[in-house]
């Protein structure tokens, strides 16, 4: 776990002042879940901006507040960033009211990154549940855009119902690619008559797919209960805690290690995370 210096504070820039972003595209992903494509209004700011897979930011609706999400697009796709959010509180409800062409704020990128350079030559196993695909989508596309650097890519993604699956077009694309093994699943009872994917909880499907642990990195994102039940399956398949990566999603206000609410023990999720290996998480108190 390496703490990264916060960019965007040098040169006298007040880090609490967001970049002005224009919503270039709105995609409805699932009930209550939307994706925004955001473009920098100040092109110079956009050119200077860079981030890596796994980082997050503070998105703001002026007058309503800020909310924390990962950057869901890949750093290999230049000129924009994307975020995917579920409408839940005051800020996300206000975000959901915005349309294409509207201006919102963004500050970041904050936090550490998935060490994808270290993973080169390895096989990748992505396991995600529900609304936790967005942080993983960033790293999936990042690795797929550098496809020849990695071995087999396996994606296991589940949601409660067919409607709740996000990024349906991309799932379709991954499903047709010969260099990606995709397994989509929905919880029992969540399937429709047309559903061609699997039915069952993510840990069960993982057990059925049973990917080999050798030379493989597992990246797991999902609700706490899914993570809790997935970890033992991975252990059974032979994955060591060092081979397993996940992200923590604690409540944050500042994003830069000052406001004091995202810490897990002595670790600030905003500075030392959000990306952790299971080995690192095992060292932390269970307060997340």
């Amino acid at each position, binding site marked *: 776990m390496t703490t990264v210096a*916060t960019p965007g504070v040098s040169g006298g820039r007040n880090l609490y002042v967001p970049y002005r972003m224009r919503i270039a595209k709105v995609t409805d992903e699932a009930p209550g879940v939307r994706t925004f494509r955001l473009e920098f209004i100040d092109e110079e700011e956009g050119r200077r901006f860079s981030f890596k897979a796994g980082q997050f930011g503070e998105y703001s609706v002026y*007058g309503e507040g800020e909310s924390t999400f990962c950057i869901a697009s890949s750093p290999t796709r230049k000129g924009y960033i994307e975020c995917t959010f579920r409408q839940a509180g005051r800020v996300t409800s206000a975000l959901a009211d915005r349309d294409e062409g509207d201006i919102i704020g963004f500050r970041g990128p904050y936090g550490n990154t998935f060490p994808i350079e270290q993973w080169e030559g390895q096989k990748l196993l992505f396991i995600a549940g529900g609304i936790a695909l967005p942080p993983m989508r960033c790293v999936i596309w990042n690795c797929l855009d550098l496809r020849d650097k990695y071995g087999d890519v396996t994606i296991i993604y589940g949601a409660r119902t067919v409607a709740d699956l996000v990024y349906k077009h991309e799932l379709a694309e991954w499903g047709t690619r010969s260099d990606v093994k995709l397994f989509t699943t929905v919880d029992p009872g969540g399937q429709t008559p047309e559903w061609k994917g699997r039915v069952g909880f993510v840990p069960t499907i993982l057990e059925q797919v049973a990917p080999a642990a050798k030379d493989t990195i597992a990246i797991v994102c999902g609700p706490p209960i899914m993570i809790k039940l997935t970890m033992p399956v991975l252990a059974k398949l032979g994955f060591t805690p060092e081979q397993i990566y996940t992200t923590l999603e*604690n*409540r944050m*206000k500042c994003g830069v*290690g000052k406001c*004091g609410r995202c*810490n897990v023990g002595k670790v600030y999720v905003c500075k030392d995370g959000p990306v952790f290996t299971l080995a690192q998480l095992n060292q932390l108190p269970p307060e997340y």
Partner: protein
Amino acid sequence: MSETRILQKASLDGLFAKLTAAGRRIVAPVRQSATALEQCHAERVEFEEVTTAQKIAADYIQTIRPPKGALFPRYEQMLRFKIGGKEVQAEEIKPEAKPTVLFGLHPCDAASFATLKAVFTWDSGDAYFEPKLAHTTVIGLSCTKGDAYCFCTSVGGGPGDTRGSDILLTPLDATKYLAEILTDKGKAVVALAPELFTPANGQAAPALAKIAPRFAADKLSAKLPALFPKGEIWLEQSLRCIGCGACAYVCPTCSCFDIQDERQRYSGVRLRCWDSCGFGLFTLHASGHNPRPKQSERWRQRVMHKFSYQPERLGVLGCVGCGRCSRSCPTDMNLAQHVQSLAEMPA
């Protein structure tokens, strides 16, 4: 090495006049006058802007609110918005950083600025905190008395501790102070009125307050991680805690904050304001999940943050032993007692 001088108490007005003439405001502890309902106020001393020494509470033990507001106000506007259809403008609000002399801070309060500085500058700067710190000069005042709640000597401080002060005044007798000029900011103050600071020749050591040490903070810091999993200790200590934010709001080093927007139809502001880890909502996720759902976990977070996490991550203790939290706690949660009992527990 610091330089020592003598400053007559009668010279304070002269010093204040020079400071004011140099464009500095002076903030000092002032005993509050009784109001329409006299019995409502026991002795209250608060920091206030003053122009003369007359109103200053000479021998106060502690104010209710800490001086942290001078650097980190209880609310502070950060951005201003103009909202009109698709055209939304955000404009930065520059903090008011008026050259200020904080006069008469006790050594614990002066030391608290080091903790605040560590939090606000440990990794990246803070455009609202740093300008104020740069414009603030601290003239500390050693303590000649303390009370049962004071425990500065357990957390690396003391009634005559110089940390955080630019000048530290120690009462020698009823008429004069020993002035230790500690920093360049202190020297700048002396330079405004050099004639008031006379040479100190072999003055007797002043009598300071006696504050007996109750625990060793460094040993406690080393031990706390091992106590973390023992949930029953934290539960037992926090049974009477009612989860209000009083301790955090009166704490000179508590710096957790919330960022909130306020708006009217076509305008708005973004502000940050004090918050407390004792509140259940502090860490509540949008999903309803809460990493610290119980009050005992929040109490543990408070103690661990001050005595374990901050020393380890920032190199400073999150407590200066001023005792405000314990004086103000509605349920008499006495931090020093609790922490002392943790220190005395077998590891």
